């Protein structure tokens, strides 16, 4: 752990040298401060309450290459299956953290769908206004670490009252033949007043060399804007992901985030919502289906700062073999945030005696006129329901799969993109080892 920390700190000098004159900018000042913060905090350990159930130690031992080379021998046909390719979409694609123009389809017509690197060079107003303003570094070592090296990722800016006409896919491919790699994408997404967009984010390794991704995504959902964001996590079992997503919501805005966690070795999802102005509507949905040697940790925050906002959170998990799951859902209702509606539900099914889940709802409510609820269940599949299905000729494996799908289905949320819904259903069927079409 210390070794990786040292290596990151010394490689920072190399990183700085390559910035060519950019090192005096306000952005770079923020990077330096962030590095300092990381130096002080160090990687989170299990002694840290927020990391009690997720141990990064095993994945911090590897000798990661920090600035992997660009791979340009990947062709679209090799990676086609990771895209939703039946529909038209914008694509912002990276390979080993480096932008891949030939796999991408960006635009500046009506809105900007391009790269963070491009925004750094061309859109100082966006960077000054939003970069490092939404994600907080206080006690957040992984956010600081990412910020210190922040240089590339997706940049999306949708101006006032514009609706992005097709979904946006942000995909980070990783591929290396020799050594483990660490990548730190930085995304910035700005929806101005009345704007609307749908985004799908994916991190995908193309071979079994371990990858550690520490991503930060800052999102501003402007007044009356609407954002649907899907995180499709189905990476190889050698890859780990620490995802830090921070969202600020403004008046009358709607933000729906769905996280589908099926793959990876260690996945930590930090999803932080700041409800900054009145009448915001927030949905957090999550479906986790994992098995042998997999760990998924959902750490969510609904921070109700003002009155009349609503947050709905529903996470369902299915854990097989020795899989471990964590759900830490925090709702804070500040003193002034009267008339808040905040709901949270987390249900888990354990398919094996060796699978575990640690569920921790945290409600901090300082206002007195609110409606808040939380619920948490851990159980097994209903044997009666299983017999019912089998008595209708459905084989045990398929019956189990159908029951699991049924259990998870309401947490899939409203996946409005039909092709994505099909893909998610297909991935679930595959994960459950059946060849079933879950919807008629």
């Amino acid at each position: 752990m210390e070794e990786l920390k040292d290596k990151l700190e010394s490689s920072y000098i190399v990183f700085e040298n390559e910035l060519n004159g950019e090192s005096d900018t306000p952005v770079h000042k923020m990077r330096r401060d962030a590095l300092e913060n990381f130096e002080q905090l160090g990687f989170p350990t299990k002694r840290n309450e927020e990391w009690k159930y997720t141990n990064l130690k095993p994945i911090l031992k590897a000798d990661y290459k920090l600035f992997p080379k660009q791979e340009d021998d990947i062709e679209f046909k090799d990676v086609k299956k990771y895209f939703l390719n039946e529909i038209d979409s914008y694509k912002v694609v990276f390979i080993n953290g480096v932008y891949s123009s030939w796999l991408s389809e960006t635009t500046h017509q009506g809105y900007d769908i391009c790269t963070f690197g491009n925004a750094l060079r061309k859109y100082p107003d966006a960077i000054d206004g939003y970069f490092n303003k939404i994600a907080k570094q206080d006690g957040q070592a992984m956010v600081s670490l990412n910020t210190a090296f922040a240089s590339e990722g997706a940049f999306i800016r949708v101006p006032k009252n514009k609706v992005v006409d097709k979904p946006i896919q942000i995909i980070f491919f990783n591929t290396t033949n020799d050594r483990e790699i660490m990548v730190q994408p930085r995304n910035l997404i700005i929806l101005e007043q009345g704007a609307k967009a749908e985004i799908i984010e994916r991190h995908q390794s193309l071979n079994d060399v371990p990858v550690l991704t520490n991503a930060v995504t800052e999102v501003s959902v402007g007044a009356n804007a609407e954002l649907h964001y899907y995180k499709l996590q189905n990476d190889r079992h050698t890859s780990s992901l620490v995802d830090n997503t921070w969202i600020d919501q403004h008046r009358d805005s709607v933000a729906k985030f769905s996280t589908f966690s099926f793959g990876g070795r260690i996945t930590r999802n930090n999803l932080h919502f700041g409800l900054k102005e009145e009448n915001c509507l927030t949905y957090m949905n999550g479906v986790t289906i994992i098995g042998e040697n997999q760990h998924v940790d959902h750490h969510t925050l609904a921070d109700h700062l003002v009155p009349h906002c609503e947050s709905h959170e529903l996470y369902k998990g299915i854990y097989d073999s020795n899989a471990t799951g964590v759900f830490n859902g925090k709702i804070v209702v500040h003193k002034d945030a009267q008339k808040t509606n905040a709901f949270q539900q987390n249900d888990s099914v354990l398919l094996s005696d060796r699978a575990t889940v640690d569920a921790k709802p945290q409600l901090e409510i300082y206002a007195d006129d609110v409606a808040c609820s939380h619920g948490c269940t851990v159980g097994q599949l209903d044997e009666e329901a299983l017999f019912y299905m089998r008595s209708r000729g459905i084989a045990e494996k398929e019956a189990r799969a159908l029951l699991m799908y049924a259990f998870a289905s309401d947490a899939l949320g409203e996946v409005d993109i039909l092709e994505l819904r099909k893909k998610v259903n297909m991935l679930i069927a595959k994960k459950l080892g059946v060849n079933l079409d879950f919807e008629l």
Partner: protein
Amino acid sequence: MLNIKNLHANIEEKQILKGINLEVKPGEVHAIMGPNGSGKSTLSSVIAGREDYDVSEGSIDFLGENVLDLSPEERAQLGIFLSFQYPIEIPGVSVSNFLKTSINEIRKARGQEPMSAADLLKKMREKLKVLEMDKSFLSRSLNEGFSGGEKKRNEIFQMAMLEPKLAILDETDSGLDIDALRIVANGVNKFRSEDNAVVVITHYQRLLDYIVPDVVHVLMNGKIVKSGDKSLALELEDKGYDWIKQEVASI
């Protein structure tokens, strides 16, 4: 078609069935009546393959196969259908998706191609009509929030869709008002043919006015103690079970 010989079954060491003999031929309707706790539901569960029961003695043959060696799904694939006394609620699985999966799993087991979505829908509409059910039923979660009557109708709807060789109706009439009873019975009668058979398990003679049995059996204390024609059901309704108990005791 169905041949049960000297069937003994236990649950957790407790003996429930103590030597059942029953033969059902194609085209027949058998009614099994009996007081509470006599083993009626156990018998239907054991035939359908519920694994909580331990069969200690005897055999169940269906179309020449010993079904005791088969899983519940294999029995269903052979053509055995059990209408549940208490259908299970399964949120998140729509009636149509459930039936599609069920029909295609059975077809797969029989080496047939899956049924096309169009054929499936056509057949569903047809059968819904027989049971006077609205097509909005299809998109509802299986049994979730259904009234007692809707659940039972849904069971018979599934039977009509799956077209089994043998349908066992476990207290399908309980909790039904007279209109629903008529509709359900009509569904069963439409289903009946020379090639299939129905076993009706019930407390009450009422259902048998609509589904007329060829044979009526009285199950008591884990054994069939008396069999007769449909007039036996009327006699039971009239006089209760005590006279049979005395008759059995005197033998």
